[in-house]
């Protein structure tokens, strides 16, 4: 096997390793606990395979809540308040948001271009678009 083939094979393995293999949102939905009245829910999802090899940890107010994996999502329930969702590769990027009781917030993560490695990006998405995007994604939460 020449060097190019080995390199391609390695890239494929790394990319596949960065893809989530959990149950789809449609399968998960019925198993997901009902949101408590005193809490809100933050969904974090990544609906692109670009930069699949980059799987940064996603922190919510400094605590690891999951990983930003290609074509995957996870969620975290938290009391109302201010939250910073962040991830770090060669730089740290974050989104700051406020969460109300009974509210669901949707954070779309992606990987952009960087100097040496892809950089994480976050944007907020409205509920309708967020739920639509989740349908085809796999659960990567704990």
């Amino acid at each position, binding site marked *: 096997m020449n060097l190019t083939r080995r390199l391609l094979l390695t890239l494929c393995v790394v990319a596949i390793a960065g893809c989530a293999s959990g149950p789809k949102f449609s399968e998960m939905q019925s198993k997901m606990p009902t949101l408590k009245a005193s809490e809100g829910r933050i969904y974090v999802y990544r609906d692109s395979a670009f930069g699949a090899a980059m799987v940064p940890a996603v922190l919510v107010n400094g605590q690891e809540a999951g990983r930003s994996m290609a074509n995957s999502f996870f969620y975290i329930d938290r009391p109302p308040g201010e939250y*910073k969702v962040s991830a770090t590769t060669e730089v740290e990027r974050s*989104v*700051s948001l*406020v969460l109300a009781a009974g509210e669901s917030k949707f954070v779309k993560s992606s990987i*952009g*271009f*960087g100097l040496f490695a892809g950089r994480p990006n*976050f944007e*907020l998405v*409205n509920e309708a678009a967020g739920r639509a995007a989740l349908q085809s994604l796999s659960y990567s939460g704990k």
Partner: protein
Amino acid sequence: MQSINLYDSSDTLAASVADGCDAQPLVIAASKKTQLNQILERFMRHPFIEVVAIVWVGLLCAGCAPEIGRTAIPYVQNNGTKEVIQLTQSTTVPNYSGAGTTLFIGTRWDHVGEVAHGKVYRSKDSVFFLRGANTHEAYLVVKGKKLVGFYLPGDKAWSVLEPSLDIEFGVN
């Protein structure tokens, strides 16, 4: 006593390390160095290399938006009557997200509070955010018919918009 000798002649690149014993010199063949140089030179002379470099630097710069300026500010929540405004004209806010952020005609905004600079309105139909180096959920701060800045609830901070913008809306 340890001595390190590095030398580069036209034919060989060699490093020898002697620590008082009979150390063997490590020699890297000059042909390999020449090959590497040739590959590198050929690569640098490739007609597309400048285009690739420009695109790469451009993409890199696109990811280097400055952070949004903000200062902490007291916020008073509106617990009274919820006034809703509806934009009657689209407005593009420059200096955010590089290309600007557009507040679209027809979008509705709830009056949710006050800051010292004006009334605070949260998007009723969607979620509004500003993106610099990082992303911030944002509410509009309106004084009269002027958009004067943004309240960033996740940061409990105020971000001024200079110059302020005229904003056209009706009250529902």
